[in-house]
């Protein structure tokens, strides 16, 4: 299988955005290709690191009150 072709779809693969057939082909390729695996592994870790950076902002109580007041003014029961 063509390594370059797989690398071209690396992020699409990690995002699960390919057809089931392509997902399986790449998955199979990664089991045996030492050249490709580290790149996929690195990018997978990279994407997980971005996901972990999520800031858990909680809408402040004051904002909730302001939203409710606005909605009541707009006619919400």
């Amino acid at each position, binding site marked *: 299988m063509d390594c370059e072709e797989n690398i071209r779809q690396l992020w699409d693969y990690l*995002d699960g955005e390919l057809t089931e057939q392509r997902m399986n082909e790449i998955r199979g390729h990664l089991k045996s290709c030492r050249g490709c*695996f580290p790149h996929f*592994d*690195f990018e997978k870790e990279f994407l997980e690191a971005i996901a972990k950076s999520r800031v858990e902002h909680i*809408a402040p109580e004051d*904002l909730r009150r302001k939203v409710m007041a606005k909605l009541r003014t*707009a006619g919400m029961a």
Partner: protein
Amino acid sequence: VADDRPETKLEQDARFEREALPWMDDVYRFARSMTHDEADADDLVQETYLRAYRAWHTFEPGSDCRRWLFTICRNVFLRTREREARQVDTGGDDAVLETMAAVREASPFATSNAEAIFSRMDLVPAIRKALEELPEVFRTAVVLVDVEGQSYDEAAAVLGVPIGTVRSRLFRGRRILQRSLIEFARDAGFAGAAGKEADREGDAHGL
């Protein structure tokens, strides 16, 4: 409601309260990621909910309310930042080139000590900083897909652009982020020099 009679206003309001209001933390977080400012995010959330309430009859019951609110939030934000949002060169639809370039740039790390970077370093502050510095169009694509877990299709619906545009913005954003992280890692002493390639065949199942 099992019968076919139209919803009363009271029922509509109750449904809004039940389905739309619980997403306020998510909308607030999304607003903060776009504005970087507490007061601006505050205004943006209020305006989003006001518009959502007024347009509630257009919301299709059973569809994704969170995504619907994100779409409104994004549109309100764009209206206030129209100029900035349109000035950025989004680089065209060159997602594949971005992928290839990112892989090439990360290669010294990927083939030597990837685990060391991600397991030994606390990258969260560096990622947050790099995200803040990303031009808005790239940042929003990365936030929607990588942080909020939306698919390309869902992000395209929120942003009102074709999937190809989401993909190219996302990949370009990722590449810029990755470059910042690599610089950060180098500054912290990770040379990323070619080392002994680990035998990871057995781990491949995890991908």
